[in-house]
């Protein structure tokens, strides 16, 4: 079912060769391994900056034997190789792979192969899929498998600092959201406790004022809590799953409730202060507050406890 990988790989070589590769075969009298030769060079980016940690593979054209090394901090690499003709492949995260089809290693001179890599994003197009990129295709390498052998492209392994910063900001804001939510529970519970003395027949103005102040503090903390959740960065392509769905759905109950409760409370407060019995829509203050408080408590529990 799968074609011969090595023949396909060779057919795909022109696709991998990057236009900007500079090949310089410079004679050198550097030290060489006895009975063999040496191949060395430097890998640079389009701005002539050195590329460290690039993977350089030298494959013997005659025998197919491959050796791999990594460029150092100065972008340089070196192989001590048996004499012969070698194909040199250079790979680095964020750059297109470069292939030098022929470099002759002989006993008298060190072959120097420098390569200038072209940026992966330069044309905005992803690298064309090759037979090698198929996860079940046999590896062309005779040594350890590479990520490319698994069908994982350099683009997939490249980090995204902006995305990480976005996630960091999101986590920070949601941590503040969580802390403020827990702090809000304190005055909210106290508001409920003081409501018993605020709404009865024999209540004092002081009891009502204490209830009002606690309610106002709860409301302020609540909206600060909500702010950090609403303003936390959204991560695109994320489907909401799990308990967070209930947590978010409950916001549609306690959110409007937190707006409505103080409005109804203010009406009730004025009616009581005028010596009237709480009447009309103000009568809904208590039930709305209970539903709101319950929804808020459930929202906290939904992400804190496993049901």
């Amino acid at each position: 079912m799968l074609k011969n990988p090595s023949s396909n790989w060779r057919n795909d070589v022109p696709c991998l060769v990057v236009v900007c590769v500079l090949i310089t075969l410079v004679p050198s009298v550097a030290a060489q391994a006895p009975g063999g030769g040496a191949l060395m060079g430097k890998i640079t980016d389009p701005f002539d900056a050195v590329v460290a940690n690039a993977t350089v593979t030298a494959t013997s054209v005659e025998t197919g034997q491959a050796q791999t090394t990594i460029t150092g901090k100065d972008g340089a690499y070196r192989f001590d190789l048996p004499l012969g003709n070698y194909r040199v492949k250079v790979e680095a995260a964020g750059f297109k792979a470069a292939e030098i089809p022929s470099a002759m290693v002989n006993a008298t001179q060190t072959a120097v192969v420098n390569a200038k890599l072209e940026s992966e994003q330069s044309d905005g197009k992803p690298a064309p899929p090759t037979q090698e990129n198929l996860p079940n295709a046999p590896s062309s390498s005779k040594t350890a498998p590479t990520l490319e052998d698994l069908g994982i492209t350099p683009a997939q392994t490249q980090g995204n600092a902006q995305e990480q910063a976005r996630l960091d900001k999101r986590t920070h804001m949601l941590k503040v959201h969580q802390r403020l939510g827990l702090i809000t529970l304190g005055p909210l519970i106290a508001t409920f406790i003081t409501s018993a003395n605020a709404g009865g027949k024999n209540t004092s103005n002081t009891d009502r004022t204490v209830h009002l102040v606690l309610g106002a503090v709860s409301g302020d903390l609540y909206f600060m809590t909500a702010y950090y959740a609403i303003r936390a960065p959204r991560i695109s392509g994320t489907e909401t799953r799990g308990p967070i769905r209930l947590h978010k759905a409950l916001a549609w109950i306690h959110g409007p409730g937190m707006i409505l409760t103080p409005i109804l409370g203010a009406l009730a407060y004025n009616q009581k202060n005028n010596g009237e019995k709480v009447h009309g829509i103000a009568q809904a203050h208590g039930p709305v507050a209970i539903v709101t408080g319950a929804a808020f408590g459930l929202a906290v529990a939904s992400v804190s406890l496993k049901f």
Partner: protein
Amino acid sequence: MRKKILIAFVLLALPAFGGPDSQWVLEQCTLTYHVSHPLHQSEGVSHAARGKGICHDGQCDFLIAVAVKSFDSGDSNRDLHMIQVTRGAQFPMVTVRTRLPESSSTSTTVHADLEIQFAGQTVQYKQVAFELTTQGNQTRISGTIPATLSDFKIDPPTLLAMPVKNEMPVRVDMTWHPQ
């Protein structure tokens, strides 16, 4: 005549001994991390790992890679926090490399030295035990990697101001087949 046949046989048989290296391909894989919190026990599962083994001179080099964001704990909020805390956007892949003798495929247990790259760190785990079961041409490998958050310099995530435990064992269940 016999001598010629013998020479021909030896010449034909030679490529079989020095011939093409065998390879292993990861067919199925389930990776499960376990995180403990005083209020929660959470697990994240990924079935998205890819792997390959290349054997040469009796030694097999294996590489398994999986995207950090492929782990699913059933809670998208937790998954996003895990990606953030493990710096998964900056270091999107987890890779595991190991080298095993080719003969170990017939054993029932194997102890592997693992090199794991995760969260921008490279950590080696020595002699991690895995069980091997062979059925037909499939070899099932299962075991647990005793990973910890501190190994990878990950700050323990907190919930209600309580951090999760440092231990984060990763259960591995893989099915390989030779190619």
